[in-house]
């Protein structure tokens, strides 16, 4: 009840204040519409544009994340990548990443190392192509607006692990946010598939990667 009464009083007051503050809205609130002449601004407003990948076509960056190796554990991964924007729809990239694979539990339990120290390195060199599934805008609270896109990626890779070289397939996705005119932020989710012969068990392994990348745009 009280709120209602309050509103009855406040609403016209607010309306009045808008009349004063925002003359653009005033015409609607005046009863006599004929007497109002709308003055169109002669100057065109330049629309504020968020940073986008428009004139730039290369990205060079680093990424950090984790990789889970089948039969072993999850370890930190770091890499560098170079991206070429062929056109708005397609990208091509070359990247290199490395990770130190810690001991598997069975190695600890048995008390012997199955891999030498040098073989514990997991090195990936990959060539990928990406297709932009969609583009759009991402909003970080009410104030920040960024151009963003989702790419589906696929490629081939060379993996050095356990003293052997493997050719593998990498599939995944990248969510790219254009933070500023020269900086982009990536969220990468990937699956590295390759065949491995380990402890005389030959099988196709899936090795999941999650990483976040920072790239310079030029």
């Amino acid at each position, binding site marked *: 009840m009280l709120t209602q009464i309050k509103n009855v009083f406040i609403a016209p007051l607010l309306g009045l204040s808008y009349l004063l503050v925002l003359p653009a809205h005033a015409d609607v609130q005046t009863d006599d519409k004929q007497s109002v002449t709308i003055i169109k601004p002669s100057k065109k407003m330049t629309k504020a544009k968020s940073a986008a990948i428009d004139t730039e076509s290369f990205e060079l960056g680093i990424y950090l994340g*984790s990789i889970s190796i089948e*039969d072993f554990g999850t370890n930190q991964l770091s890499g560098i990548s170079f991206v070429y924007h062929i056109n708005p729809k397609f990208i091509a990239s070359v990247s290199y990443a490395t990770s130190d694979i810690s001991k598997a539990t*069975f190695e600890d339990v048995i008390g012997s190392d199955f891999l030498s120290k040098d073989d514990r390195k997991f090195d990936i060199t990959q060539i990928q192509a990406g297709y932009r599934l*969609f583009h759009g*805008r991402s909003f970080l609270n009410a104030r920040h607006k960024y151009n963003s896109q*989702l790419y589906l990626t696929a490629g081939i890779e060379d993996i050095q692990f356990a003293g052997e070289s493997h050719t593998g397939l990498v599939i995944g996705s990248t969510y790219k*946010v254009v933070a500023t005119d020269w900086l982009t932020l990536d969220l990468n989710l990937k699956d590295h598939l390759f065949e491995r012969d380990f402890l005389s068990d030959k099988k196709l392994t899936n090795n*999941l990667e999650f990483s976040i990348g920072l790239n310079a745009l030029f």
Partner: protein
Amino acid sequence: MEYWFQRILLNTKRTIIILLMTSTQLAYSSEPTKPDANNIDTEYFDAGISLGILNIEDFGSEFTAGVNLTFNATENFFMQMNYLQANADESSFELSQGNLFSGGDRNFKHYDFLVGYNLFQGEHFFSEGKANLSSLYVVAGVGDTEFGGEGSFTYTTGIGYQFAIQRSVIIRLDFRDYIYKTNIIGEDKTTHNTQLGLGISYLF
């Protein structure tokens, strides 16, 4: 106190008006409904299924199937329940040294309760024209993992994004890390079991 009083007054008045309204409406229609805020179609929940790949630490990678229910509590926060399971094949170590466990214990069963936060809310275009809602979110929560004859207290963390392909159909791509302590191989250790999942959900 004042607020309470206002509410009571308002509610009583509203009830009387509704009663009056319905009684007048009764004269015109056999099934009257009043225009009420509570009759509005809501879109608070979504339910879905997901498929994925799970790397079980010290074991292999397995296909997972799961179900989930999400309550979109605010524009920023949501709550989610997940259940998933996978069948663990023999690890390379087991193939050479013998199985550590068998039967039902080879099923990896997990459920959790998560809280999610939308880092980025967005709108996306598959083609020029109509925008679809999307978001990039992080999740964290607790749950239970049954594997190898053990039940383990599990922390779940993750990141993912979702996008609508239709008004009520959402696609989700998720990365999750299930973290729990286990001693199935003989040593107490904290394991990270990562999963990539692709899901489809219906908003209602």
